[in-house]
């Protein structure tokens, strides 16, 4: 604190309170909307105070078949999202930590080439190669499968760089000592590198879980079968038929359920989350 100016403190508090309200406002509206009965949305404006229809709204979306808007019960979509998020996070970490290990602790022909090939993935987000990627997936018969949903998203340059950075800071003496004691590469990896990168793995896991859960374009491309629908991609389909019969309470219940898991992860693992975010951008 440079100087003690009361009015600046008040101003800062006022700004922050406005900020918090701004950030929370849309979510508040969604939660409130999910607690009303469908008739509350027919006329007037969105209600701003909680209603009494919580149980019906949420029970309705879990049972599925709510008025033509959802053919799949929400439980299946939540399960698909969970599978997708966990598989992507887990797969990315395993694949990246192995390749970082290879790049840092071995010297072999084409090492630099391999590094650059991994680097290039950074420059090719799904969005810019939509059609040809879709063709590859359909040629490999991976449409409507969990493999199709997860495996193609597992390559990760950022995670590889992160682990490379971590390994480079681990003292050389550890590896020399392990070799003198007769440990082979995989034993060294399992008994020394893995335990030493635990926090980084956990932090990265938090970020990647959110990344996987929030995927939107990919599930839309790869799944046509409702039983593989993820919740984030599923909301859109519900909202599409809205013009005919706006069951806003159901749509908002699904929206709330779609953001709940990643938001809880951020709130309860804030330290790891911030670490993961900062680490993976370096």
């Amino acid at each position: 604190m440079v100087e003690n100016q009361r009015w600046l403190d008040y101003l800062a508090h006022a700004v922050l309170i406005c900020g918090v309200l701004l950030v929370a406002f849309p979510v508040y509206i969604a939660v409130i909307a999910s607690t009303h009965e469908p008739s509350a949305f027919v006329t007037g404006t969105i209600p701003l105070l909680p209603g009494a229809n919580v149980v019906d709204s949420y029970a309705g979306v879990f049972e599925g078949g709510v008025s033509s808007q959802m053919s799949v019960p929400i439980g299946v979509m939540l399960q698909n999202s969970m599978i997708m998020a966990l598989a992507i996070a887990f797969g990315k970490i395993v694949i990246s930590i192995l390749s970082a290990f290879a790049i840092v602790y071995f010297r072999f022909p084409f090492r630099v080439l391999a590094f650059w090939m991994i680097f290039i993935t950074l420059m090719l987000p799904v969005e810019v190669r939509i059609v040809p990627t879709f063709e590859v997936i359909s040629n490999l018969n991976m449409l409507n499968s969990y493999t199709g949903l997860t495996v193609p998203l597992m390559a990760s340059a950022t995670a590889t760089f992160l682990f490379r950075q971590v390994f480079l800071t681990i003292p050389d003496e550890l590896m020399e000592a392990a070799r003198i004691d007769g440990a082979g590469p995989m034993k060294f990896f399992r008994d020394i590198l893995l335990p030493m990168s635990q926090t980084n793995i956990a932090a990265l896991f938090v970020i990647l879980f959110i990344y996987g859960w929030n995927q939107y374009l990919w599930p839309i491309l790869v799944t046509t079968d409702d039983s593989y629908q993820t919740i984030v991609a599923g909301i859109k389909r519900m909202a599409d038929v809205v013009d005919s019969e706006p069951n806003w309470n159901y749509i908002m219940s699904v929206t709330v359920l779609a953001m709940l898991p990643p938001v809880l992860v951020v709130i309860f693992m804030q330290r790891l989350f911030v670490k993961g975010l900062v680490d993976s951008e370096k």
Partner: protein
Amino acid sequence: MQTKRTIFGNKGLPYLLLAPQLAVTIIFFLWPAAQAVRQSFLREDAFGLSSSFVGLRNYTRLFDNPEYLNAIKVTVVFSISTVVLALGVSLILALAVDRMIRSGRAYTTLLVWPYAVAPAVAGILWWFIFNPTIGIMPYILENLFGYDWNHSLTPNDAMILVVVAAAWKQISYNFLFFVAGLQSIPTSLREAAAIDGAGPVKRFWTITLPLLSPTTFFLLVVNVVYTLFETFAVIDATTEGGPAQATNILVYKVFRDGFVGLDFGSSAAQSVILMGLVIVLTVIQFRFVERRVTY
């Protein structure tokens, strides 16, 4: 490239370790990218039975196409507005948190969680708030300013809607990095300026902002990439590029032309142009990161 002083001598093992990563990269990244480049020089007939080499025709056709030029314009407006809004709001919030001694952490927790909200969900949330018949914002706009909001008819309204939704989602990310950037500015500098008689506003412009420029620049690149690509979900979940192409950004057009229009040559040419754009942005980002490390 850096390795360890001592290394393991195995010959085959490193290839085995790299195999999964490289397999995924080649099959799902490099191969499709190469296909996009190839297709961008071809033109398929209406039934997809045969294709012929057309050289740069797909590209020249794009730049003669008013719809594509419109998409470029829309993307520029959308990107700039979203980036300015997201960076501006988060910088103000970060400056305020930086003044707090005890309550900083609590405010941070309350501000960071929207990072976890999917862009598609952010779109749906704002779409509901701005719903022309029952939304709360159109109600306020109509009664306070007499403005008749309708994003399904008025192009400007649709643009404002997607900008607000996209920026809202990005505030928490920018905020975290701005707070970290502000904390790394030595207090002694600001104290010295205060002793020399510089007020809070002057200190912000002459000390805080210049010293924050590495963070700002980094965030600028990240945010531009975000608005160019990840906002696909925001657009698709809300306006679907309409009304009258008013929110049809480049990424969305690649998708529509490819999957709805089935014009693969044109879609591939657009993909290649976007790849070029990402490559430029990535190079900028990495040159900058290298410089930051030597600080």
